[in-house]
């Protein structure tokens, strides 16, 4: 079953953990589908959750680009998330103190530029530091960003936040009227318990479309990057920076590039959040977002993009799933219980499965063995013969 035992058959199969996750995910999806069709789960609410999961997945993907690829411990995730959200909010919202009313695409552009600038601002002093210093310094700088957002009322409206953010698709030819134009649908699988999909549902589906687009782009970019020579250098830096330097790579600039890439993706998550919630406040830059993103990445598997997606889903499951505990009378408050649960999850993962649930498998195979189409090549001969002069692909 393992790639070593059966090189020919391995790539087309899945590892045990992947199969397990796939099985569980499929069963879970089926369960959700049934719940929706019978009316136990509201479709609009479900789509909202999917949107949130996509947002956390984006954060994890961005963090993965920094930690998973290059080994940068970045604790300023919340700052980039916030700057993405504020960037677009300040450009497009009617309640913005400095601009407002621009198209959300302009907002997206401004958010990305702002994130780029902030990445440079935070990266330049911190990326030369060793890993744990980078962690602490980035956490501190993120707090500075939050305090600026909170105190500089002329810039951000201070604690009142920015209101009146339009939906992302405002002004688009077809999509802006899509939720109203679509007819209401009535699905009746179980007679007497109809599932009605109307405007709010279509609006929510547009949001999901948006986050899937963002996540898809990010995923594709990261996949490409990981397999490219650029990605190879990053992985070398992660495992042994001195080696990379000895090979003549200007490690600082590679680290900066990886940091910026990850930050841009995190800002995308912030942009989506702003157009989902239609309101942004300094409370959204609370460091807890950073810790959630970290849990998602560790849980999913450091260095693995699929793991990041998985982690994002789990985080939303923990955050919102514990809400349903309210219906079950517990002697313990749900909020500290959630905190405890997250702490236990972190410790358990680090103790029993530090590589995460879906660690990178094929992503770590030497790129030359992987052709561009995605499926890794199976060597015709053993590794030694290959190295010794066997046929190259």
């Amino acid at each position, binding site marked *: 079953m393992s790639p070593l035992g059966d090189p020919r058959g391995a790539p087309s199969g899945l590892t045990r953990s992947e199969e397990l996750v796939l099985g569980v995910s499929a069963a879970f999806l089926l369960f959700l589908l049934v719940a929706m069709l019978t009316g136990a789960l509201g479709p609009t609410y479900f789509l909202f959750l999917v949107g949130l999961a996509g947002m956390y997945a984006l954060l994890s993907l961005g963090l993965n680009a920094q930690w998973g690829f290059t080994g940068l411990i970045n604790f300023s995730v919340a700052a980039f998330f916030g700057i993405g959200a504020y960037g677009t909010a300040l450009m497009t919202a009617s309640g913005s103190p400095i601009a407002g009313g621009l198209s959300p695409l302009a907002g997206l552009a401004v958010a990305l530029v702002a994130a780029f600038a902030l990445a440079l601002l935070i990266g330049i002093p911190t990326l030369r530091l060793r890993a744990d210093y980078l*962690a602490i310094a980035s956490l501190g700088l993120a707090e500075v960003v939050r305090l600026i957002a909170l105190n500089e009322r002329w810039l951000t409206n201070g604690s009142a936040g920015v209101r009146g953010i339009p939906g992302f698709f405002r002004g688009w030819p077809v999509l802006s009227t899509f939720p109203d134009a679509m007819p209401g649908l009535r699905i009746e699988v179980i007679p007497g318990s109809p599932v009605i999909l109307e405007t709010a549902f279509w609006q929510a589906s547009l949001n999901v479309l948006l986050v899937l687009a963002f996540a898809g782009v990010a995923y594709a970019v990261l996949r490409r990057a990981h397999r490219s020579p650029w990605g190879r250098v990053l992985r070398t830096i992660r495992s042994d920076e001195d080696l990379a330097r000895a090979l003549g790579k200007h490690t600082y600039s590679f680290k900066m590039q990886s940091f910026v890439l990850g930050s841009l993706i995190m800002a995308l998550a912030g942009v989506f959040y702003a157009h989902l919630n239609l309101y942004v406040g300094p409370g959204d830059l609370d460091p807890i977002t950073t810790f959630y993103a970290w849990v998602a990445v560790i849980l999913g598997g450091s260095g693995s993009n699929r793991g990041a997606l998985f982690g994002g889903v789990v985080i939303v499951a923990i955050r919102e799933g514990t809400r349903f505990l309210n219906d079950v009378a517990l002697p313990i408050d749900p909020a500290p219980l959630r905190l405890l649960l997250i702490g236990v999850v972190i*410790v358990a993962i680090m103790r029993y499965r530090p590589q995460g649930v879906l660690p990178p498998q094929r992503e770590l195979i030497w790129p030359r063995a992987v052709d561009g189409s995605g499926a890794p090549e199976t060597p015709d001969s053993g590794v030694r013969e290959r190295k010794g002069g066997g046929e190259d692909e």
Partner: protein
Amino acid sequence: MAVLGYLANGLVFSSIIVLGSIGLSLVYSIADFANFAHGDTMTVGAYAALVTLGAVGGLGGAVLGLPYGFFVALAAGIAVAAVAAVATEKLVYEPLDTDSIGLLITSIGIAFVYRGVLQIGFGADFTRFDVQALRPIASLLPYGVRVTLHDVAIVASAVVLVVGLHLLLQYTDLGRKMRAMADNPELARVSGIRTKRVKLWTWVIGAGLAGAGGVFLGLFNQLAPRMGFNLLLVIFAAVILGGIGSVYGAMAGGFLIGMINQLTPLFSDVVEALPIWPGWLEAALESLVSIEYANAIAFVIMVVVLLVRPNGIAGEAAT
């Protein structure tokens, strides 16, 4: 307030920070990772003391405005924090087969666990020790110094504990072994030092000091489940400023950061009084050197130190 007054307040706040930063630095240098659960260890100590004080009462008599029972509670806080840390080390950190980054991440989980348990047990609301509040010491008022006997107690206890640690490090066997391990762990092990035991004792001392810091923080202000975590970043700034790996550096760093935090109003007065040439720079400085940014100033200093002198004031040579 007079400059002396600010300095006095700074001294009191520094004492608490120093207790936290020494503990963190000790753990950092010997267990070799940044312990993000350190702030919550302080909270553990504080709540243990709260429970003890409630159970034991005043025990008649008082010293420096604090009933004897309070000192019993202080001892309990130190002990419980130490026990919690040792238990965590034995159950969680030791069996973990990972590097310092992995331990860092695990310690975040431990921090959440500590805080979650405390909040489940005590609720989220704030509370105070059942100790009589005091008026400032009259004889010091003419100098512009407004401190109470409690503040004196905090400073005095911190001095006692720090001196005790110094004596331990310099003159005892254990202290020597700890310093050896901090300098060069492999050499220490090779030379026969039982590193595991020394590590355990480091946890005891480091967490104990943190617990004491938490108790005094609770006395200085109030107790809430978030109290330690809120202070954690500032303590990290102190440790980094002083230099990771150096306990004395941590003392200096803690002292400095505590002072800077309390002296911020003085700084903002100075900035306002100074004529600064470009108008926008003056406006920016005035707005940034103000109480709202007091914590931010500490972080910025930390980052600047890291840039200019990555090993801090008294840190070890670059690794």
